[in-house]
């Protein structure tokens, strides 16, 4: 069974984001990169499948800049067998990334049985790549999954939709699944795992190697800027129990008279 996991390397969630002077992207020099948090659920799910199917192989794929290879090494330290990196700028659009992933899968010469990814990457928050990749490979897909049962080639997955309702899908492998928080609890990489990961094979390709060029770009971003800052609000000290009702009443009143919201 050939399992592929698509991961992305994104700025740590605590990173302060600063647009570049010309607004073409963000300053990336001092960013701490981490594996996209949703991708951890995808890696974990692949490893859970491998535990039950020891013959399965787990290959991790990433499209992005080489700065460091944190995401791929982390996935291999968790237990993935090998990895492939397609070197590209960090501001590539979803269509190009999906096409590069497709090309990277083809480079392995393996036919995918299961492709897992995080439901979204927390940098461009596009929620597109898994579904585009599925369409490019003519495979079924389910996104935002929080439940996964595999028996043979039959799959039952739960997808979370608005208001916390769940859609239960039945499908068969091969397919693409985009994972959400709640699907499983990602394991931590063990020290032996981290040591082993350093020796695991990692293929490296250029975009041209996997058949992607600038003409594949479908979405262009420009004019990056910080959102407008709000003017400072009003602050009320209601630590004195005797004043609480008066102050809360005042705030509730302001929501109507000043903010005109209620």
């Amino acid at each position, binding site marked *: 069974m050939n399992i592929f996991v698509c991961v992305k390397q994104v700025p740590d969630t605590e990173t302060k984001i600063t647009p570049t002077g010309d607004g073409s992207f963000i300053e990336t020099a001092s960013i701490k990169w981490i594996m996209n948090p949703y991708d951890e659920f995808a890696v974990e799910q692949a490893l859970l499948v491998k535990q039950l199917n020891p013959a399965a192989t787990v290959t991790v794929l990433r499209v992005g800049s080489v700065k460091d290879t944190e995401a791929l090494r982390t996935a291999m330290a968790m237990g993935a067998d090998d990895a492939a990196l397609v070197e590209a700028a960090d501001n590539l659009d979803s269509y190009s990334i999906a096409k590069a992933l497709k090309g990277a899968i083809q480079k392995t010469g393996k036919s995918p049985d299961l492709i897992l990814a995080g439901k979204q990457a927390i940098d461009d928050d*596009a929620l597109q790549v898994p579904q585009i990749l599925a369409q490019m490979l003519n495979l079924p897909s389910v*996104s935002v999954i929080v439940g996964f049962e595999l028996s043979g080639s039959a799959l039952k997955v739960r997808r979370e939709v608005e208001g916390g309702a769940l859609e239960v899908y039945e499908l068969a492998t091969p397919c693409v699944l985009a994972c959400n928080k709640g699907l499983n609890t990602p394991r931590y990489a063990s020290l032996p795992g981290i040591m082993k990961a350093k020796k695991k094979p990692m293929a490296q390709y250029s975009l041209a190697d996997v058949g992607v060029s600038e003409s594949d770009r479908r*979405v262009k971003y*420009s*004019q990056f800027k*910080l959102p407008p800052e709000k003017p400072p609000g009003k602050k009320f000290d209601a630590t004195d129990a005797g004043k609480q009702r008066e102050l809360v009443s005042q705030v509730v009143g302001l929501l109507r008279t000043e903010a005109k919201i*209620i």
Partner: protein
Amino acid sequence: MANVLVFTEVHDGRVKPVTLEILGRLHGQTADVAVFGDLDAGQVAELAKHGAQSVHKLKGAGLEKYSPEGYANALSEFIKSKNYDYVFGGATSMGKDMLPRLATKFDAGLASDVVNFTFDGGVFAGTRPLFAGKCLAKVEVTGPKPHFISVRPNALGMSPNPTAGSGSAADVAVSAGDIRATIKEIIKATSTKVDLTEANIIVTGGRAMKNAENFQILDQLADVIGATVGASRAAVDSGFAPHAMQVGQTGKTVAPSLYIACGVSGAIQHLAGMRTSKVIVAINSDPDAPIFTKADYGIVGDLFQIVPIMTEEFKKLLGK
């Protein structure tokens, strides 16, 4: 002038509000609407009032319920029979799932989750948040047409389209094609409230709620003002609330008119998910909590004392 199709979802017989938000902003373009299944005359009239010309009701076997492949196949068949420059949809659960697949059937691009847009000489340019709202960027679509755009609910707001459309409705036969991933069952959520991403008012509890039972005081406040209850990541990770309620970078991004944060410290990841709320009220016992830097109205005090008083004061104000 651009030829635009707006795909709308229908919930309980009504078109999703984001459809009307989009239509209101398409003044000067020709806008049609596509929907799966039936839509009553009142809803068609509502679409027309917001500028819809033709309303295409797509019907065919296998389209009674949603599937990413069935809907994408049927919509692509319909779109190919027309000459649309742009196809819009809501950045809803369904839109986020299906639109990337649909766009790729045309080898076309999708600008997702835009919060604002303009048409200059019939050419779309949008604005969207990136890095969980920590910055904004201009977004344009290039390559083969039609170009696809998904719009974040509640972001544009309702703006009346000065020109009503004809709103002529007709059935269109389409084929769902090969569907390999199908919904066998839907497990309804326990809450009947409006989803966080579409809610007009949100009351959120943080770590200071201490336990799941205490969320009842937020429920009581929410009931009075018609709000949906959310939770911070700290509250979700502590087991006080399910992940479906989480607001923030690894939860839902929300943009309600009124956001009331109770005992939420305001970590950067949380602020990223709610900073575009129109009015923010924060209640926290720590006067230095970062949430106060984003709050229009900050109340320093114990939420277990403040929230019940606030519930009573809202009741008085609203005559309940």
